[in-house]
């Protein structure tokens, strides 16, 4: 039997394209779902070192120490152990940062409606954004270590969470800087300024975005390390791609209205209805 061909009733033209980045997000989720899964796979791959270190800490070292050490020695050991593993995490965050750099290029091409050669473009993006992404990963690792140190140093049961909370507020700036660095070939400081601009201009969305890391942080309250590990894997694979693509489009939206509108009009609204309607007007 002849297969029924799926086709639209009308020609696809520019008016069917998303009008803005918010619509584009919905459109991508609907039409390019597999792309999100592939991004999730990449992020999981980039997190392998971190997940290994994490599981070594909570599934091997600490349980073994708990059995071998006395109660008071165990507490001192956990402190030292935390700081030692922070050093390991510092290295483990590097592949995560580099992966995000590669993913940024993929999302940029996706948002701009360009052709994507998945692995070659990922590697290209990883190389192009390596400087900014590794620097940001290093800064994140240092903040993470500092936060753990302060957490151990502050005895108050509530206040000890304050440095971590404040540190998380810097996360949007770092992520916006990475997006800016993936779009323009500029210095790290210039990308940081661009990131600041994005965060300042879309503070409401930034606060909404912050719900994600804050919600993720609550995973650390789960008393069972195996469940914590599994939840982390699921979050990295299944949730982070959507949040990150959403974040990227949010940044792109702000940059379209500011930097692109002023300095790079060819990039403004690229991949959206506006790009084609603009070129139609120019014709």
């Amino acid at each position, binding site marked *: 039997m*002849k*297969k029924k*061909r*799926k*086709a*639209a*009733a*009308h*020609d*696809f*033209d*520019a008016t*069917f*394209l998303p009008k803005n980045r918010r619509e584009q997000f919905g459109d991508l989720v609907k*039409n390019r779902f*597999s792309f999100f899964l592939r991004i999730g796979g990449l992020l999981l791959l980039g997190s392998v070192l971190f997940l290994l270190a994490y599981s070594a800490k909570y599934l091997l070292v600490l349980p073994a120490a708990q059995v071998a050490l006395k109660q008071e020695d165990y507490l001192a050991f956990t402190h030292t152990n935390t700081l030692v593993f922070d050093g390991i995490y510092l290295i483990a965050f590097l592949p995560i940062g580099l992966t995000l750099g590669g993913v940024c290029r993929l999302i940029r091409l*996706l948002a701009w*409606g*360009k*052709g*994507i*050669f998945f692995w*070659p473009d990922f590697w290209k993006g990883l190389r192009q954004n390596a400087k900014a992404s590794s620097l940001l990963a290093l800064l994140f690792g240092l903040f993470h270590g500092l936060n753990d140190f302060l957490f151990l140093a502050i005895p108050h049961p509530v206040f000890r969470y304050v440095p971590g909370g404040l540190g998380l507020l810097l996360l949007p700036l770092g992520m916006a800087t990475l997006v800016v660095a993936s779009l323009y070939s500029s210095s790290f400081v210039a990308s940081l300024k661009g990131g600041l601009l994005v965060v300042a201009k879309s503070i409401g969305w930034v606060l909404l975005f912050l719900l994600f890391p804050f919600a993720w942080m609550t995973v650390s309250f789960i008393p069972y390390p195996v469940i914590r590990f599994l939840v982390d894997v699921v979050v990295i694979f299944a949730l982070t791609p959507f949040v990150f693509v959403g974040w990227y489009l949010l940044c792109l939206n702000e940059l379209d209205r500011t930097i692109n509108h002023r300095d790079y009009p060819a990039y403004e609204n690229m*991949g959206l209805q506006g790009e*084609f309607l603009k070129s139609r007007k120019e014709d």
Partner: protein
Amino acid sequence: MPEIEISHLGVTYLHRKKETTAIRDLSLRIPNEKISVVLGASGSGKTTLLMAILNRFAFDGEIRSDGVDIETMELGQRNLAYVSQTFDLYPHFTIYDNLAFPLKTIGASHEEIDERVLEMADFLGLRVCLSRKPKDLSVGQQQRVSLGRALIKRPSLLLLDEPFSNLDVAFRQKMLHLLRDYQISSQITIVYVTHQIKDALWVGDHFIVLEQGTLAFEGDKNALFASPNRSVRSLLEAEEEPI
């Protein structure tokens, strides 16, 4: 661009356990860098002729491409493309990926793929659709993608088996214009099978009329109109919507 010479072609196949002769002792020449149109009623052997040129099955006689027996040639060596009515696109690929696919299979560089896909998309008016999936496009647009996928490798021989017959007159006209433009700019050899005489007259340089597996006519447009052959006359007199 290849010139195809067909000598004493005979094709017989089993149909419901009965031997059926689709083409009998057919000899003709398909000139290079021209659009040759193959006309004829249903069952006259038009598609079988294309299949034989594609070397899809065993046949009697000989088909030569620029003097070389096609049975001694690898398909890749022949640089040909084929488009049929059933233009199944890869549904999970974007239009960009559908167009890029033939180039990926021959190992073209990513820069070259990108350049040629954009060029083809512009030529076919598909730029706006590149990031979409086939289901978002109309039948006419999907047919353009199918044609683009065939042309993107820059074949020297393009075989078209009634690819536009599902389209309405306006779309068909658009597609024929595109085909004509492409043939003029790239000077490829095209064999176009159709039963729509007005399309054929508009697009063709060289005409082949088949009748029950044999050659009823071969020649240019003037000769076609002057031909006293009964099949040709009935084709020319057939009523058709204007193009």
